[in-house]
C-alpha cells in the first residue's frame, strides 16, 4: 500500500524534533532519508507494469457521499516525478544532515522538509483532484515555512510571505478550476477525467477551467509575471533551494500542465498562454542569470529559464516537444540539484557565494570541482551528459514546431547561450583562475560526495540513454494521451539541431570570454528597480493593506450604534433581495381572529412602548415584566405549557434582579440628537416590517415534515416520557441542554468576577 507510506511519512516528520533530541546531530539527515529510500523501494514492484502502460491504482474511500476519495494513480509520468523527487530527496536529506548540523533548529527543519516531501509525492501520485489540491497547498505551506526558516531575518520572512501569497493565490484559482473541471467532467477522479477530454473541451466552462488551472500552474512554477518569488526564495537554506526551488516544488506546475494535457490541451486557450509565457520566462531568466554574481541567484534565474522552457514545450504539445519536456525535466533535476548543492558546499567552505570573489578553488576542493564541472557541462549541453540529450531534443522540438517557429527558434537559441554563461559562472568559474586571499575550511566528505551523486547520474544517463528510454516513452504517452514511439540516443548524426547546438556553444564561449559580470553595477538604474515585478507586487500588497484598513475603518470602529446599523442595513439589503424574489404570498387565515388574544397582543405592544419611553430603570423593568407575562399567556393559549411556566419564572426573577441590581440607577438622560433618533427609528421600523413579512411568508411554507413528528412517535416507546418537550430537552437534544447549562455557568462566573473586581477596586 503506497498510500500508507504517506502516513508513515507524516509520522516520520512529526518525530524529527524528538530525533534531534536523542540522535547525534549528524544522524538526523540519515533518519529522514529513510523515507525517500522507502518510497523508491516501494515503487520497484510496480515499475514493470507501469512501464508497460498499466497505471498502478489504489483507492481508499474517504467521504464517499461527497465523491471524495484518497486515490493513488501512478503512471509513467507520476513515476518519473516520484523517482526524481525521492532520488533527489535522498541526496538532499543526507547532505542537509551535515549542512544543518550546526543549527539548533535542525529538528524543526527536517520536520518541514519531510512534510514537504510527503506532500510533493502525494501531489504527483494523487488520483483525485481534491487530494491533489490538498497536497498542492501543503507544498505551498511547507515551502513558506522553509523559505522563512531563518526567521530572524526580515528579508527571509518577506520572501516567504511573497512566495506564499503568489503560490497561495494561484492555489485559489486552481481550486476554482478543479471544482469547475470536476463538475464539467462529472467526476473528481483523474482516471475518469483523463478519458473525458472531448466532453470537457466541448463544455461551456472549458475556457474558465483552462485559465484557472493555468493560473495555478504558472504561479507555482514561477512563470512571468509571477516569477519574482523564486529568486526571493533563495533566502532559504541552500539544501531547500536545491530541493524545492529547482528540482521539485517549482515543477509541480509543470506536472499539473503535463498531467492535464490530455484533458485540456490541444486548443489555443492552452497553447497560446503556455508558449508565450513560457518562452518569455525562458529568455528573461536566461538573459538575467549571466549578470548575477550570487551563486544561488545565478541558479535561480537559470531555473526560471528552464521552467519557462518546460512550459513552452508542453504548450507546443507535439510528440517531439513532449519528449523534449520530459528529457529536459529529468536532466535539469539532476544537474541543478548537484550545482545547487555545490554552491552550498562552496558557501560552507569559504563563507562566500560571490562568483567575483570565488576563484582558484580547484586545488583545495578538487572533488567538488569534478561535481561542479559535471553539473556545468550537463547544463551547457556537451556530450556525453544528459544535458546534451536534453538540449538536442529541445532543439529538435523547436525545429519541428508548427507554432510560431520563426520566433521560438531564435528565442530558444539565445536562451541557450545565456544558460551556457550561467552554467560556467556557477559550476566552473569558482574553481579556475588564481586563488584569492580567501581561506578555505575543511569540509565533511558528505558535502562533496552528495552533490556528486546526481551529477554522476547525469553522466550515466547521458552515456546510456536507453536507461531513461522506457520511462520517458511511457510518460510521454501519458502526457500526449496516446502512446508513441520514442528513441533516445546520444548521437543523432549531423542534424540541424547538432549544428545549431554547436553554434550556440561557440556563442556561449564568446559570451563567457566577454565576462558579462563586469557590466554589473550595484547601484545601477534605481528607477528600473521600482519596475521589478517584486517591487510592483510589494506596492500592490501595501496598497491592499491600506485599502483594507480604510474599509475596515469605514465599516467599524466609531461606535456600537454605528457598527450595528451597518450590520442591520446589510442584513436588510440581503434579506430584502431574498424576500422580494419569493414575492408576497397570500396568507390563508389558519386560525380565527380572537379578541382575547388581540388584547394580549396589545398589552405586549403597550409594554414595549412604555420601555421605549421610560425615563427610569424601574419603570422600564416593570414594563418589560408586562411584555414577558403577555408572551407567557400567548404560550398558554397555544398549548406550550412548559414555555409558559418557564417564562413566568424567568420574568419574575428578572424583575427581582432589576430591582436588586439597578434600583438606585439614575434617570435616563437624553443622549442622541433628533436626527439620530429619526434615523434609528427608520432602521428599526424597516427591520420590524421585514420580520413581519418573513413570518407572514414562513407561515405558509412547509419544506419538509417537522422533526418533532419523530419525537412524537419515539417519545413513549424509546424515551418513556409523555411530555414531548421535556423528553426532547433531556433526551433527544440533551447535548443542547448541556450546552445551555454551560452558558449559565459561564454567565455566573462572569457575574462573580465582576462583583469581585468591584470589591477589590
Amino acid at each position: 500500500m503506497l498510500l500508507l507510506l504517506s502516513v508513515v511519512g507524516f509520522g516520520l516528520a512529526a518525530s524529527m524534533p524528538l530525533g534531534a533530541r536523542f540522535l547525534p546531530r549528524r544522524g538526523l539527515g540519515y533518519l529522514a532519508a529513510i523515507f525517500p529510500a522507502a518510497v523508491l523501494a516501494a515503487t520497484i514492484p510496480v515499475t514493470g507494469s507501469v512501464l508497460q502502460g498499466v497505471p498502478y491504482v489504489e483507492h481508499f474511500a474517504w467521504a464517499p457521499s461527497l465523491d471524495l476519495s484518497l486515490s493513488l494513480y501512478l503512471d509513467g509520468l507520476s513515476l518519473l516525478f516520484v523517482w526524481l523527487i525521492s532520488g533527489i530527496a535522498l541526496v538532499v536529506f543526507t547532505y542537509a544532515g551535515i549542512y544543518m548540523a550546526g543549527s539548533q533548529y535542525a529538528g524543526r527543519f527536517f520536520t518541514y522538509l519531510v512534510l514537504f516531501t510527503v506532500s510533493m509525492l502525494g501531489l504527483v501520485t494523487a488520483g483525485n483532484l481534491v487530494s491533489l489540491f490538498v497536497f498542492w497547498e501543503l507544498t505551498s505551506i511547507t515551502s513558506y515555512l522553509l523559505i522563512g526558516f531563518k526567521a530572524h531575518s526580515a528579508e527571509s520572512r518577506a520572501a516567504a510571505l511573497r512566495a506564499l501569497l503568489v503560490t497561495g493565490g494561484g492555489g485559489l484559482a486552481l481550486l476554482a478550476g478543479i471544482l469547475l473541471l470536476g463538475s464539467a467532467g462529472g467526476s473528481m477522479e483523474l482516471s475518469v477525467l483523463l478519458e473525458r477530454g472531448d466532453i470537457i473541451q466541448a463544455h461551456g466552462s472549458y475556457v474558465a477551467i483552462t485559465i484557472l488551472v493555468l493560473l495555478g500552474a504558472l504561479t507555482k512554477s514561477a512563470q512571468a509575471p509571477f516569477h519574482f518569488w523564486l529568486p526571493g526564495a533563495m533566502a532559504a537554506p541552500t539544501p531547500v533551494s536545491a530541493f524545492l526551488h529547482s528540482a521539485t516544488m517549482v515543477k509541480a506546475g509543470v506536472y499539473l500542465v503535463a498531467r492535464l494535457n490530455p484533458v485540456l490541451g490541444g486548443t489555443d486557450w492552452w497553447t497560446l498562454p503556455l508558449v508565450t509565457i513560457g518562452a518569455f520566462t525562458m529568455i528573461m531568466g536566461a538573459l538575467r542569470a549571466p549578470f548575477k554574481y550570487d551563486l544561488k541567484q545565478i541558479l535561480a534565474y537559470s531555473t526560471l529559464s528552464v521552467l519557462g522552457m518546460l512550459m513552452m514545450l508542453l504548450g507546443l504539445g507535439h510528440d517531439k516537444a513532449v519528449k523534449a519536456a520530459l528529457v529536459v525535466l529529468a536532466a535539469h533535476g539532476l544537474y541543478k540539484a548537484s550545482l545547487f548543492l555545490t554552491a552550498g558546499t562552496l558557501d560552507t567552505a569559504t563563507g562566500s557565494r560571490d562568483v567575483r570573489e570565488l576563484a582558484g578553488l580547484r586545488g583545495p576542493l578538487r572533488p567538488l570541482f569534478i561535481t561542479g564541472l559535471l553539473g556545468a557541462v550537463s547544463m551547457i549541453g556537451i556530450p556525453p551528459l544528459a544535458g546534451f540529450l536534453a538540449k538536442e531534443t529541445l532543439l529538435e522540438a523547436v525545429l519541428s514546431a508548427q507554432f510560431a517557429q520563426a520566433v521560438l527558434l531564435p528565442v530558444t537559441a539565445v536562451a541557450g547561450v545565456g544558460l551556457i554563461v550561467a552554467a560556467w559562472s556557477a559550476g566552473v568559474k569558482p574553481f579556475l583562475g588564481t586563488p584569492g586571499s580567501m581561506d578555505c575550511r575543511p569540509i565533511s566528505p558528505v558535502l562533496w560526495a552528495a552533490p556528486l551523486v546526481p551529477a554522476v547520474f547525469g553522466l550515466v544517463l547521458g552515456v546510456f540513454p536507453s536507461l531513461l528510454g522506457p520511462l520517458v516513452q511511457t510518460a510521454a504517452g501519458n502526457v500526449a494521451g496516446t502512446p508513441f514511439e520514442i528513441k533516445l540516443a546520444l548521437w543523432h548524426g549531423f542534424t540541424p539541431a547538432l549544428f545549431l547546438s554547436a553554434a550556440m556553444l561557440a556563442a556561449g564561449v564568446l559570451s563567457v570570454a566577454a565576462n558579462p559580470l563586469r557590466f554589473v553595477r550595484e547601484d545601477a538604474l534605481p528607477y528600473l528597480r521600482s519596475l521589478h515585478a517584486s517591487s510592483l507586487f510589494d506596492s500592490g500588497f501595501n496598497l491592499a493593506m491600506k485599502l483594507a484598513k480604510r474599509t475596515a475603518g469605514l465599516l467599524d470602529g466609531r461606535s456600537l450604534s454605528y457598527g450595528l446599523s451597518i450590520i442591520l442595513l446589510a442584513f436588510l439589503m440581503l434579506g430584502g433581495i431574498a424576500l422580494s424574489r419569493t414575492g408576497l404570498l397570500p396568507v390563508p387565515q389558519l386560525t380565527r381572529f380572537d379578541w382575547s388574544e388581540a388584547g394580549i397582543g396589545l398589552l405586549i405592544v403597550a409594554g414595549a412602548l412604555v420601555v421605549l419611553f421610560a425615563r427610569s430603570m424601574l419603570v422600564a423593568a416593570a414594563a418589560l415584566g408586562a411584555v414577558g407575562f403577555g408572551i407567557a399567556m400567548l404560550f398558554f393559549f397555544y398549548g406550550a405549557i412548559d414555555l409558559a411556566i418557564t417564562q413566568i419564572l424567568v420574568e419574575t426573577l428578572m424583575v427581582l434582579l432589576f430591582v436588586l441590581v439597578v434600583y438606585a440607577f439614575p434617570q435616563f438622560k437624553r443622549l442622541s440628537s433628533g436626527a439620530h433618533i429619526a434615523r434609528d427609528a427608520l432602521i428599526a421600523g424597516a427591520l420590524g416590517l421585514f420580520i413581519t413579512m418573513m413570518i407572514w411568508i414562513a407561515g405558509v411554507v412547509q419544506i419538509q415534515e417537522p422533526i418533532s413528528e419523530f419525537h412524537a412517535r419515539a417519545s413513549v416507546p424509546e424515551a418513556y416520557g409523555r411530555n414531548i418537550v421535556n423528553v426532547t430537552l433531556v433526551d433527544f437534544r440533551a447535548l443542547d441542554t448541556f450546552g445551555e447549562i454551560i452558558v449559565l455557568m459561564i454567565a455566573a462566573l462572569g457575574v462573580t468576577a465582576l462583583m469581585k473586581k468591584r470589591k477589590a477596586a
Partner: protein
Amino acid sequence: MEAFWAVITGLLFSAGIFLMLRRHLAKLILGLILLSNAANLVIFSSGGLVKGHPSIIPPGEATLPTPHGDSLPQVLILTAIVISFGVLGYFLTLLRSAHKTAGTEDLEQLRGLK
C-alpha cells in the same frame, strides 16, 4: 391570527432594535431583552400555531393525537429563555460595574476607558 402575531412580533423587533441603537448602556440591555423575546416569538410562530393542544401524550396512547403543535420550536425557545436570562444577569452586573467605576453609561464615553 397568524397575521396579527406577525405584526406584533415585528413591532417588538422594532422596539428592541431601536433601543439597541441608543447610546445608553441601560437601553442597550433593555433592547436586548425585547429582541430576545421577539426572536422567541419568531421561532414560535414558525412552527405553526395550533391552539389548545399541548405536546403531551395522553395516558394509554402511544403517540400524539392530531392536531397538535410542533414541539421542537418550544424546546428551542425553552433553551433560549434560560440562556437569555443568564445573559441578562451578566449584563445587569456589567451595567452596574460600568456605572460605579466609570461614572457614565454613555457608550461613546465608555469607549477607550480601560
